[in-house]
């Protein structure tokens, strides 16, 4: 049957993905010399107070020298150079806003426990990447919508249903999710990430529906979405699903329609039987 093949191919794809993941993990652990996650703390706050004090002292010394009439040019030149350096440093600082993470790659980072990793992920504060050496990339951690439209999904008992759903997902903020997401989604557009997550959810929803009859899909949608989420394991991609809802359900054989009509007929009968209700 068609859906058997489909499930088989899904399973194969899952296996392939898993192997890929395992290989990536091995490479990662080799790279990092352990199971460390490679999340570095944002660097210390630049010594702003120190810089301001230095400028003030410099200006004072400059003015003193000026008043003494000694070396008019030197303090001015020094002040100029210092302020240029300051501006240079300030313009390099990247502030990490809430809802985003910066991934700095290109320089090995040694952690407190002695392990070494190839990139650092900054989720809070600010960072001044080293010029030329470090490359900065940006991960959007804000949630996005994924619309799910599945048609002619085979159900238990052979009927097929068409369903519409909506899901809210985001790249997880937990450190281990962030690392996985950085490996997969770095540099991809939001639309691309949406597409990948949608594909994954659609596939597992399809597989999950196979265990439900059309009536069950409509009545037990909570259980369906729970089992879909449990199977999707989007945590492996570094994705956190915040909501998954099934909106509309229609079966192609018309079983659900028929049950709606049955209910209507029942109501009409009640109406005829009700005292004074017959017309």
């Amino acid at each position, binding site marked *: 049957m068609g859906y058997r093949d489909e499930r088989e191919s899904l399973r194969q794809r899952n296996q392939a993905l898993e192997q890929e993941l395992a290989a990536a993990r091995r490479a990662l652990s080799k790279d990092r010399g352990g199971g460390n996650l490679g999340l570095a703390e944002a660097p210390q706050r630049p010594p702003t107070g120190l810089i301001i004090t230095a400028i003030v002292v410099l200006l004072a010394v400059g003015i003193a020298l000026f008043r003494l*009439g000694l070396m*008019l040019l030197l303090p001015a030149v020094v002040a100029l150079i210092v302020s240029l350096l300051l501006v240079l440093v300030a313009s390099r600082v990247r*502030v990490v806003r809430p*809802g985003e993470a910066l991934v700095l790659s290109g320089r090995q980072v040694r952690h407190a426990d002695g392990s070494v990793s190839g990139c650092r992920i900054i989720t809070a*504060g*600010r960072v001044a990447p080293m010029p030329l050496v470090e490359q900065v990339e940006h991960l959007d951690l*804000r*949630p996005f919508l994924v619309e799910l439209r599945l048609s002619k999904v085979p159900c238990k008992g052979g009927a097929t249903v068409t369903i519409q759903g909506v899901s809210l997902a985001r790249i997880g903020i937990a450190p281990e999710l962030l690392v996985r997401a950085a490996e997969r989604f770095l540099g991809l557009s939001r639309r691309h990430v949406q597409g990948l997550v949608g594909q994954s959810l659609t596939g597992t929803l399809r597989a999950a529906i196979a265990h439900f009859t059309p009536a069950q899909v409509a009545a037990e949608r909570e259980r369906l979405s729970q089992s879909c989420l449990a199977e999707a394991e989007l945590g492996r991609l570094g994705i956190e699903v915040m909501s998954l809802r099934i909106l509309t359900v229609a079966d192609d054989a018309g079983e659900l329609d028929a049950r*709606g009509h049955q209910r209507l007929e029942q109501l009409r009968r009640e109406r005829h039987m009700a005292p004074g209700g017959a017309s």
Partner: protein
Amino acid sequence: MGPPVIVILALGLLCAVAVLFIVSRMICVVGPSELLVISGSRRRIGDHAVGYRLLRGGRALRWPWIERIDRLDLSVLPVTVQHQALLTVDFVPLSIEVEAAVRVVGQPPTADAAAQCLLGKPRAEIVELAAALIGGSLAHVVASCTPEQIQSDPSHVESLVIAEADFELRAIGLEVERLVLGSVTDELGYLVTAAELQTG
């Protein structure tokens, strides 16, 4: 013999202008219907570090260049949700419209969620997110009600939808201010029959 007075004056003026410029970049003022997010300095919330602080109303000082400010609009967002063929518990398909008003929450801890989830998103996109979450909750609630319940007691359905959507909306920093069930129609003619049964 010192340098000419005019030179010293000019130097002082230059310094004053520089200080004024820096101070003007440091002060940020927050209006009553907005939430200011100052990112760049680390602080702790519970056991994890975040890189921002929130400010609602009033003013604050920030370090220029190394702290960045963003604003979140706290005004009310109108959301309209319209769904067709939502199945009730007895499989009668209904078309339901819901009018809601949501807003970004200004008080922590929900405000933290708002900063992390909605910062920089245009209003239209926030409305779209809210509409999707409310629509999902609506479908869920309708699936557990009969058409008679929806028709006879809309306020109960409204409170159910609010309760259902509240958790997910708060997770992204929104709250429902008002939610009203609009028109409820069905192609089957079920509601009309049910109404006749009740009155007749």
